[in-house]
């Protein structure tokens, strides 16, 4: 080990406070990360409010709390919000903040393009919400926006067009950020930070960035063609004039399936960074995990038509087979996570609780996903509440729980003080119980034949009990979310100092101060493994890595 390495400095430069102009013109990746996190939190509350309205309307049969027009707009914008304005951008926001830190870089490769990305995202989101004020109201074609329903004949009105334009802006912002992420990871790693020593959050963000680059252009194309059909006399999707309605589904789902992995891979990465810290062991099977992520990303591009099994015009066995294959690398990850905990010394601070909740929930989502991958099973379940339950288990029970793990884990680093542990634990349990109480009954409703996107149902259908239970569960879930907001407020008031590395974690972001200075590092430890800070802090502990920090295993 080199003798010229010095210890980290005791004093750190104070972060300057930004005014409005400061926030509008920042190009610093950490502040852009805050912009993403703040905006997505507001959109999360908005989307959650829409969900509350849906659950009230569906709590009992034949309710008219919402009219059909209102209901159709609300579920459309709820889905759009959670997919495009919450889950995916939180991944980009956390990546913005932490990928440069994790690889030892001073910022992202293209700081101004980074800012352009976040402002396009915010502008696109505001456009979509502004559409509620247009004459026909917001778009109401479902977040999947199938043609011909989304065409001008069946969805007239500016709201639909504003949705299209908002999504195009968001897509452009995502693509620019993906380019930035790839360039940063390829070209701006610190000396010694080889690709196979990067933290798994960074690896997964790299792979997510590639997915964004190949998935969003087909969506932009699909929507551009739709806009031409709507306003410039195009007939891409109108069969009467030689177009194809199925073309829309192919283009949309070629984007749509990788999109769900864009919404899950970053959060697999977070969980993979957090579990080793609270198990006091390195990640089990690092190389296997990276290869599994690549396999998931690659396969995810080849399964899109499992959303089209009931169209009758795609080769169902090809897509069933490819979709079943994705279960294998996902299973490998589960064994990586379990193998990390195995024979470790686990503690259950709030970040770890969220990770455990993630594991338990995502397993249900994953197993039901394998069922849906079987085309004949999908003949029964497609477009029923079984699918709704499955997707909420993977995106809510999975990604959202992992997001909370990341926020509780990284909040000390971003702010310098801790989130309250006690409120955090109460918040976790309310969210975990509430989440399962809301969405497990929806599996039952789907198996009893309840289709999606219906505004009401009759008492004789047999769907009442699961729906009432789900609404009760939603209120429990709401308490969990409120507790999180309370935690934010209380912690900001109390400001219990966290220090540089409250969790004894290993990746490079913990080598700098909390919060980091403007260009991130004034000192770096030597990088010889995937957890250089741990190696440095435990350099005198023979049990830490078997010697002088030499990395074992992996390429």
């Amino acid at each position: 080990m080199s003798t010229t390495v010095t210890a980290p400095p005791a004093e750190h430069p104070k972060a300057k406070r930004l005014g409005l102009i400061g926030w509008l013109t920042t190009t610093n990746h950490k502040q852009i990360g805050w912009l993403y996190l703040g905006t997505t939190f507001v959109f999360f509350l908005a989307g959650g409010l829409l969900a509350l309205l849906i659950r009230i309307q569906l709590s009992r049969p034949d309710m008219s709390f919402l009219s059909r027009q209102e209901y159709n707009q609300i579920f459309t914008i709820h889905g759009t919000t959670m997919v495009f304005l919450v889950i995916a951008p939180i991944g980009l926001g956390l990546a913005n903040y932490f990928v440069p830190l994790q690889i030892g870089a001073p910022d992202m490769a293209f700081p101004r393009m980074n800012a352009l990305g976040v402002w396009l995202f915010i502008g696109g989101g505001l456009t979509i919400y502004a559409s509620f004020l247009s004459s026909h109201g917001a778009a109401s074609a479902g977040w999947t926006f199938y043609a011909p329903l989304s065409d001008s004949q069946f969805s007239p009105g500016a709201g639909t067009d504003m949705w299209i334009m908002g999504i195009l802006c968001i897509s452009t912002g995502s693509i620019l950020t993906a380019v930035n992420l790839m360039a940063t990871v390829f070209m701006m790693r610190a000396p010694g930070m080889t690709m196979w020593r990067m933290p798994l959050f960074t690896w997964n963000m790299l792979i997510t960035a590639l997915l964004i680059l190949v998935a969003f252009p087909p969506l932009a194309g699909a929507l551009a063609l739709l806009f031409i059909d709507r306003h410039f006399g195009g007939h891409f999707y109108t069969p009467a004039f030689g177009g194809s309605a199925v073309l829309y589904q192919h283009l949309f789902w070629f984007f749509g399936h990788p999109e769900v992995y864009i919404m899950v891979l970053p959060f697999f990465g977070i969980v993979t960074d957090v579990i080793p810290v609270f198990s006091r062991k390195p990640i089990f099977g690092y190389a296997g995990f990276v290869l599994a992520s690549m396999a998931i990303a690659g396969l995810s591009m080849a399964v899109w038509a499992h959303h089209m099994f009931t169209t009758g015009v795609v080769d169902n066995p090809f897509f069933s087979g490819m979709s079943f294959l994705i279960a294998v690398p996902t299973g490998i990850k589960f064994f990586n996570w379990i193998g990390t905990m195995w024979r470790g010394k686990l503690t259950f601070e709030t970040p770890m609780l969220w990770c455990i909740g993630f594991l338990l929930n995502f397993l249900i989502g994953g197993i039901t996903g394998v069922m849906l991958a079987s085309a004949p099973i999908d003949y029964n379940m497609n477009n029923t509440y079984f699918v709704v339950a499955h997707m909420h288990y993977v995106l809510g029970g999975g990604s959202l729980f992992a997001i909370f793990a990341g926020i509780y884990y990284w909040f000390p680093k971003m702010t310098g003080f801790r989130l309250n542990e006690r409120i955090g634990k109460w918040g976790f349990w309310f969210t975990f119980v509430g989440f399962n109480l809301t969405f497990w009954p929806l599996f039952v409703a789907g198996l009893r034949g309840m289709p999606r996107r219906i505004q009401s149902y009759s008492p004789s259908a047999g769907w009442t009990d699961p729906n009432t239970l789900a609404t009760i569960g939603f209120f429990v879930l709401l308490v969990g979310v409120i507790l999180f907001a309370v935690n934010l407020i209380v912690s900001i008031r109390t400001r219990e100092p966290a220090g540089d590395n409250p969790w004894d974690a290993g990746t490079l972001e913990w080598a700098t101060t909390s919060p980091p200075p403007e260009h991130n590092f004034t000192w770096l430890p030597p990088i010889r493994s995937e957890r250089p800070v741990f190696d440095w802090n435990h350099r005198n502990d023979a049990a830490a890595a078997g010697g002088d920090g030499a990395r074992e295993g992996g390429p």
Partner: protein
Amino acid sequence: MPGPEDRELVNGSWKRRTAAGPRRRPPWLGAAAGSAALLALTGCDFGAPPGASTQGRTIADLYHVLWYFAIPVGVIVYGLILWSIFRYRKRRDDDGALPKQTRYAFGLEVTYTVIPILMVVAIFGFTYRAEQKVDRVVPNPAVVVDVDGFQWQWRFTYEGKGVTVVGTPGNVPTLVLPAGQTAQIVLRSEDVVHAFYVSAFLFQRQAIPGVVNRFDLTIPSPGSWPGVCSQYCGLDHTSMDFIVRAVPPATFQAWLSEQQSSQSATGGTSS
């Protein structure tokens, strides 16, 4: 106070001293419990309808098979997670030493890659076979019905019989079919994408403008089952319901004749 020689104090209670440390639950116990649960569930429907059509019965059987794969996977993985949480949590009297920093185990990693691949190959085999059965259309069905979806009703036209049934707001159309025979549905849409879904048959197919979808319904016994449109199609998607009613073949022929005469008399369709 010193305890008996073969016991040691662990976490405040006396445990039998064994070579491997404090006594742990025998590993076969979990597998036995899981298998017992599995056997108990073989009589279970797992929440889905049993299948009122032969195609639906095939799907229901496949659904059960998938559960027989899902349950052991779930039990094992949940078991491992919960076991880790309880067995490997940091004890209050922990000495602060790091546990063994295992990074990989090549043989284990290969095993837990290969076994799932074999499992999904098996599941794919079951799936492929079931799908061939469900999607098969016979060359000479007993009756062919053109089913047209449009915003926001269904129209059933019995090919070659001059009989049409259409739904009106507040009046759900009934698709009458002969029980014990194979009916063929020719599914079309007149405007946006709809889907013809009967939960009791565990079956749905999209009605896409510009596409003609064809499928068989073979309903062994008479009965009546609700159907819905399962592809969101606009404002009144919620009320685009229908009913499928299977009646004995003689009753079906009688119904057809009655419809033919009444519809040619009124010159229109019935609902």
